[in-house]
């Protein structure tokens, strides 16, 4: 019901240039932003819940859940400690609401702050490494699995090799035509195929949106077949 009313309302909103409609858009987008923030909290909460359950039930590998909590507490305390310092600092003048009125941004996130340190020295290297591992696997897959099994796969591999050459200075040095061919491949066949795929994706996503609005698609409510 809510989905239906809001959905229809905002489809109509698009076509109405009146100030009221513009104001409605402004406010509701702001609300969505706020609710989005709360959803972040909820997401974090459910993850904590899962790992807490693991530890409680001593599931195999529960020790690693402990490691997770260690990380969690580490970064939480890096954020909350500066807040507490502001809270209990005697120098704070305006103590209107619990004294932390002055806090609006994330405490400790400024360069050199504790949260920034945790981010730069722990989060940063790990998340960057996660994806770079694939750089290695790519090479082993190139040797053992990327096969020109069919005409289609051959075409794909040839295009890939061209792009790989053209995206480094070497391509242009080998033959000045490579960058041109690459640009043409991207601008013509690639554009055509991707455009048709976009059409398909757009129609699909509108269909899904419509099903949500009309209440016949409820899987997003979670649990599917609970």
């Amino acid at each position, binding site marked *: 019901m809510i989905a239906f009313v809001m959905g229809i309302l905002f489809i109509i909103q698009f076509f109405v240039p009146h100030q009221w409609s513009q104001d409605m*858009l*402004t406010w509701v987008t702001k609300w969505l932003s706020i609710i989005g923030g709360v959803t972040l909290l909820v997401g974090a909460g459910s993850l904590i819940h899962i790992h807490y359950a693991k530890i409680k039930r001593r599931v195999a590998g529960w020790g690693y859940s402990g490691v997770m909590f260690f990380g969690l507490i580490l970064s939480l305390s890096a954020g909350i400690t500066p807040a507490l310092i502001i809270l209990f600092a005697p120098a704070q003048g305006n103590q209107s609401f619990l004294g932390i009125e002055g806090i609006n*941004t994330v405490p400790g996130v400024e360069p050199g702050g504790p949260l920034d340190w945790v981010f730069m020295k722990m*989060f940063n290297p790990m*998340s960057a490494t996660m994806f770079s591992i694939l750089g290695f696997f790519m090479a082993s897959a190139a040797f053992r699995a990327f096969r020109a099994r069919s005409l289609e796969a051959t075409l794909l591999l040839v295009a890939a090799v061209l792009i790989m050459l053209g995206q*480094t200075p*070497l391509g242009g040095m080998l033959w000045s035509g490579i960058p041109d061919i690459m640009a043409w491949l991207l601008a013509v066949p690639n554009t055509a195929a991707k455009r048709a795929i976009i059409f398909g994706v757009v129609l699909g996503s509108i269909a899904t949106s419509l099903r949500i609005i009309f209440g016949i698609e409820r899987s997003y409510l979670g649990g599917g077949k609970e």
Partner: protein
Amino acid sequence: MRDEFRYNLTRWIIFILVALALSIPQFIKFGLPWSTTARVVHNIYDKIESLPEGSPVIISSSFDPASAGELKPMELAFVRQCFRKNLRVIGLTIWGVPAVPMMTDIINQVAKEMGKQYGVDYVILPFKPGPVYLTMCQDFYLAYPSDHKDEPTKPMPVFKGIRTLKDIKFLMDFAAGVTIDYWITYGREKAKIDLGLGCTAVMATDYYPYLQSKQLLGLIGGLGAASQYEALVQKPGTATEGMRPQTVVHLLIIALIMVGNLIFIVTKSKRR
């Protein structure tokens, strides 16, 4: 067990080859100049060069450390060009929490280097979830009442004359995800803003249709294009440095594909 070991052994040998290909060219320096610059990359450079001094430009920095290897060099080069042209730079992100410290780090670094003043020449806004890109089209200061340090935005000189997204002359999104779709779908549709995209190589091909339809003015895709941009701005950085190992690794992978396929063809014909 023996199979598993043999399986892993080939793997490990290849991994060591890759590690060597990645690290040796970092020590042995050899020049690899670009013969041409891709037109799509050049378009963004030209657009910035054509903007009059003091024009406000938004840098939407939508990536976290996972993609920084590719996107950081291009953002550095782009910010450098903006500051050199004395444009007003507004840094923001619609992507997620970890993007803010990355962006702050990058913009501050260049600003410090070029003596730019916070609040006058540039500003950094916090992350807000949800459709801020739409709120911005309506009222910039409702979307961002304060900057990432909680200073109110409206009185800052950097925001002079800006009411909505429509007053921004150019928006460059450095994207590791779908953020550019939001800018194309909402920002461009509603505020008619000119868009440029700097993205990871994984995404690059997906956005060519939008280039042809002029919804995007230009595109910097991946480290190769980033090094081209560094060349345009005439300040070689990590992307240019990275081109040496990149080239060697690409050659290695091409060779591996060829050898692998050769073995494949030979064994297939033997079986027959």
